[in-house]
């Protein structure tokens, strides 16, 4: 989900390159070079990212089926309709349930696992690779696999029967009471390894000496983790929370291939609702897209204001070193 990371507010290309003044001669050629080098990327980017986003905002004010001319302007009616549709409200609720559950359940699990795994273990490379496997799979393929595992006559139910818990067996993804939590389990399976690896990477930045100092001061292992390691892991945790929130709000592929938002909207999300309605009514679907964007943006900005002020300047913009 890293490719959908919204930017921090203050991104900068850095100070101007130095020592270039002597080549100021031949300005025309310089601008030509700039145009030739940056032009193609800029054209592709503006045409296929910026223009569609602006079009979505425009379409959202029209009653439009995508085929006839764009002429039935209806103001905010699409937005009003969306917020009066219980299905859409439930989709928003489901998105936020996943956001909160991810932070409260996946986060602590990942941190605990990373703290335990952050040491010399035999087969460490193998362990790391293995827990990363679900993350590498396409969401679609992971979803299909779990569809098969969780089907009424699938592996999970058969396993429950084998250990004598057959009364627990059920059509997991077809039971509206639990489908959202089953979906959450699949997402946890898919993304926990990523969270653990990010936390492990963050722990690499915690100097070993600090642990030694804490140990000399008489702190036990748990105390050292709580008072020394966790605060230093803060930036990593905050970035992970951020990525997790954005990913959860945009959730589409996994739901689409497993349940299409069913049963009875139990697993519906904003993006699924948008595609279902937007195929025949691009105007209405675009209003959903704008709402989805504004919710993501608001949550991202609020979160950055509250939690990430100090981290973000370098974390996303500085890139790979």
């Amino acid at each position, binding site marked *: 989900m890293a*490719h959908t990371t919204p930017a921090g507010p203050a991104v*900068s290309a850095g100070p101007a390159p130095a020592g270039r003044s002597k080549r100021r001669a031949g300005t025309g050629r310089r601008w030509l070079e700039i145009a030739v*080098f940056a032009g193609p990327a800029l054209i592709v980017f503006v045409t296929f990212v910026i223009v569609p986003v602006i079009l979505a905002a425009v379409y959202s004010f029209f009653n439009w089926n995508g085929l006839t001319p764009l002429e039935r302007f209806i103001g905010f009616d699409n937005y009003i309709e969306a917020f009066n549709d219980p299905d859409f409200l439930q989709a928003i609720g489901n998105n936020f349930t996943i956001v909160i559950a991810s932070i409260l359940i996946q986060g602590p699990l990942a941190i605990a696992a990373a703290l335990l795994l952050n040491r010399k273990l035999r087969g460490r490379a193998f362990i790391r690779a293995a827990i990363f496997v679900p993350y590498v799979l396409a969401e*679609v393929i992971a979803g299909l696999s779990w569809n098969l595992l969780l089907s009424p006559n699938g592996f999970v139910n058969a396993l429950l029967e084998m250990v004598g818990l057959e009364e627990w067996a059920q059509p997991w993804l077809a039971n509206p009471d639990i489908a959202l939590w089953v979906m959450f389990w699949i997402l946890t399976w898919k993304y926990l390894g990523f969270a653990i690896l990010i936390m492990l990477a963050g722990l690499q930045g915690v100097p070993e000496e600090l642990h030694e100092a804490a140990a000399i001061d008489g702190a036990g292992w748990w105390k050292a983790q709580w008072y020394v390691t966790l605060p230093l892991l803060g930036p990593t945790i905050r970035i992970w929370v951020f990525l997790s929130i954005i990913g959860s709000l945009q959730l589409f592929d996994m739901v689409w291939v497993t349940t299409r938002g069913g049963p009875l909207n139990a697993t519906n999300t904003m993006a699924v609702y948008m595609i279902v309605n937007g195929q025949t009514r691009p105007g209405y679907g675009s209003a959903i897209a704008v709402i989805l964007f504004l919710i993501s943006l608001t949550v991202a900005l609020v979160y950055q204001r509250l939690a990430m002020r100090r981290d973000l300047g370098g974390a996303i913009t500085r890139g790979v070193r």
Partner: protein
Amino acid sequence: MAATTTAAPAVAKRRINWSSPLIYAVAYLVVVVSVVPVLYVWLNGFRSNADINANPAGWPNPWYFQNYLTVLGSDRFWGSLASSIIVAVGTTLGVAVLGIMAAFVIAKYDFRGRQGLYAVFAAGLMFPLTVASLPLNLLIRNLGLHGSFLGVIIPQIAFALPTTIIILVPFLRAIPDELEEAAAIDGASRIGFFWRILLPLSMPGLITVGVLAFIGSWNAYLLPLLIMAAGGMPQNLWTLPLGVTQFATQYSQDTGAVLAYTSLAMLPALLFFIAAEKRIVGGLTGAVKG
């Protein structure tokens, strides 16, 4: 986990006890949970439908190869594989070429609008493809690219550009200006400097960016769904994620074949991951750590 609490005070003096069986238990529990579903799909591809229906949690008995042979003998699997490769390679090359060129200008030229140019690309991070998908779909249709490879590749390039440029610009900036001055003294033009010095030096950054773009494209679903499936492209040219879902819907009764197709569809990503593990993990953690 509670057990370590009691052991902790004694352990802390020697830092950490390396051999605690509990640690291994936790580690391998996570490993088992991560890997078993994948193994299940793989193994059960080797079972006949009758065998699977008799006991969904059983071991292949006897080993049955027909599912894999059927999938491997079908046009649509190879077509999907080729399609995924075409789209992913096209996206990766496009992003790398356009990205490094734009990043070069932003990092190494001093001109009015430089910050603005960078900000435009950085702003792209705020617009996920989901939000733009419906108008993008219509735009692609109007350009006559519906149902074509380019209809998927070009938008994917566009949406991968922000990450690419944001990773590459600091990378290029870190290349010392003295190198350029030295090149100039030796008579190299700026373009010559770009080709002969900057490009080779920025390979590690390009590879990271390329791997990220490749994986993004390989796993992409929404755009192929809108452009290929809805655009009337023949099914045997759909990318793997799209092809495998279509296969699963179409042959939902043939569980064994679906399992075999799904596990074969996983294989390229897993092999690619094994080959590029360092880059992927490094790229992710680098981008997060800062």
